């Protein structure tokens, strides 16, 4: 394997406890990859998360292609599964937040977002890949920016310039003297902080999840020496538990991301009061 330590898997080192070797803790370096192609300094390169992102989108498209290319009124098994997922997002998320009439237009975007993010998250526990693409801030950021542009432009389109400004600032005369303060806070909260939190919420969850998995995996190997074997067992069990937990978090974070997307769109469409 590569001589680059960032590419070395935990069990490929000979570093064990009681060998006078320090614990090779996971850190930010665990999220940096030596480019597969190109040069890391030149900004023209291709690395493992990029490969996973592209393969992931091919998998998502392939799945829905197989399920929905020639859909039947009486569905087969695959179509049934895909329909269940589609229906869950359409009814459970879009119709619930935006409403059936207004929301229908945004169903394709929200469905794509959900399954794309879910797939990117799922890479975390796929053997060999074992890296959640969304733990690189660039991927959640792109999606958050798309959603941000959508809901901001929708607000202007729906309410005009003044209406949109009132919508962003939560303009409400009954607040009286606190109004300027409330408007300032709302303005910052909605226009500046919101896209940031939207992206970081997903990023940080996947980042932390991956770090935890790395920690327990590396520890299981590192502790595998002498009395440490008992601890290694505990650590290994924790790895399994955290993997199951991550499986849940991956779906949950994808769900949270699209739910927030719908809430933002709904806020843009709603009449300000």
């Amino acid at each position: 394997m590569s001589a680059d330590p960032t590419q070395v898997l935990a069990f490929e080192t000979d570093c064990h406890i009681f060998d006078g070797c320090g614990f090779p803790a996971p850190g930010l370096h665990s999220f940096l990859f030596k480019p597969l192609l190109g040069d890391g300094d030149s900004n023209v390169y291709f690395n493992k998360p990029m490969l996973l992102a592209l393969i992931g989108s091919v998998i998502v498209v392939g799945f829905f292609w197989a399920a929905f290319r020639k859909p039947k009124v009486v569905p087969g098994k695959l179509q049934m599964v895909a329909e269940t997922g589609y229906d869950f997002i359409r009814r459970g998320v879009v119709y619930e937040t935006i409403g059936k009439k207004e929301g229908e237009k945004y169903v394709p975007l929200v469905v794509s977002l959900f399954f794309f993010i879910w797939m990117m998250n799922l890479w975390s526990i796929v053997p060999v890949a074992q890296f959640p693409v969304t733990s690189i801030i660039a991927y959640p950021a792109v999606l958050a920016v798309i959603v941000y542009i959508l809901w901001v432009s929708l607000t202007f389109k729906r309410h005009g310039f003044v209406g949109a400004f009132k919508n962003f600032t939560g303009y409400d005369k009954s607040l009286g003297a606190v109004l300027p303060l409330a408007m300032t806070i709302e303005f910052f909260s909605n226009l500046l902080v919101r896209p940031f939190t939207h992206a970081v919420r997903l990023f940080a969850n996947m980042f932390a999840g991956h770090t935890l998995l790395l920690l327990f995996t590396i520890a299981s190997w590192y502790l595998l020496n002498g009395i440490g074997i008992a601890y290694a067992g505990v650590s290994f069990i924790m790895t399994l538990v955290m993997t199951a937990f991550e499986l849940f978090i991956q779906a949950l974070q994808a769900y949270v991301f699209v739910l927030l997307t719908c809430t933002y769109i709904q806020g843009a469409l709603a009449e300000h009061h």
Partner: protein
Amino acid sequence: MSQLLILAAETENPLVPPIPELVIGLIAFVIVFGFLAKKLLPNINKVLDERREAIEGGIEKAEAAQTEAQSVLEQYKAQLAEARHEAARLRQEAQEQGATLIAEMRAEGQRQREEIVAAGHTQIDADRKAASQALRQDVGKLATDLAGKLVGESLEDHARQSRVIDRFLDELEEKAEAAR
């Protein structure tokens, strides 16, 4: 683990997205969104609508069929009841007609018998009358013939006249002798 690389990593801010990854992320998402929004989701929406229509249509058809079956059943029941009623009425009529017929025939028979009896009586009366008539005519003719004979004899021939008279007398004598 090279300390240098770890140090290098820590100079990278994990919250600053590198441009190439932004581009790839955008491309990857656009691939998914493009296929789903342009082709696959419209496909499935069409089929879901078709399915809903098929189910609703099926329910409507079933309801229509049930309504029709119900109406046909009622129609049959009504027809059956009518037929029964009709049959009962016909039977009743036939009985009544039969009774009238029998009464009529009896009356007719009685009348014919009486007619025949009356006709018989008339015939007998007529025959008797005719017989007495004929008898009376015969007696008259006999008398006339005799008278004629008598007159004719006397006019033609005296001898024959006397013979007739003689014979008549003889006959009378014979009758008288026979009476004696």
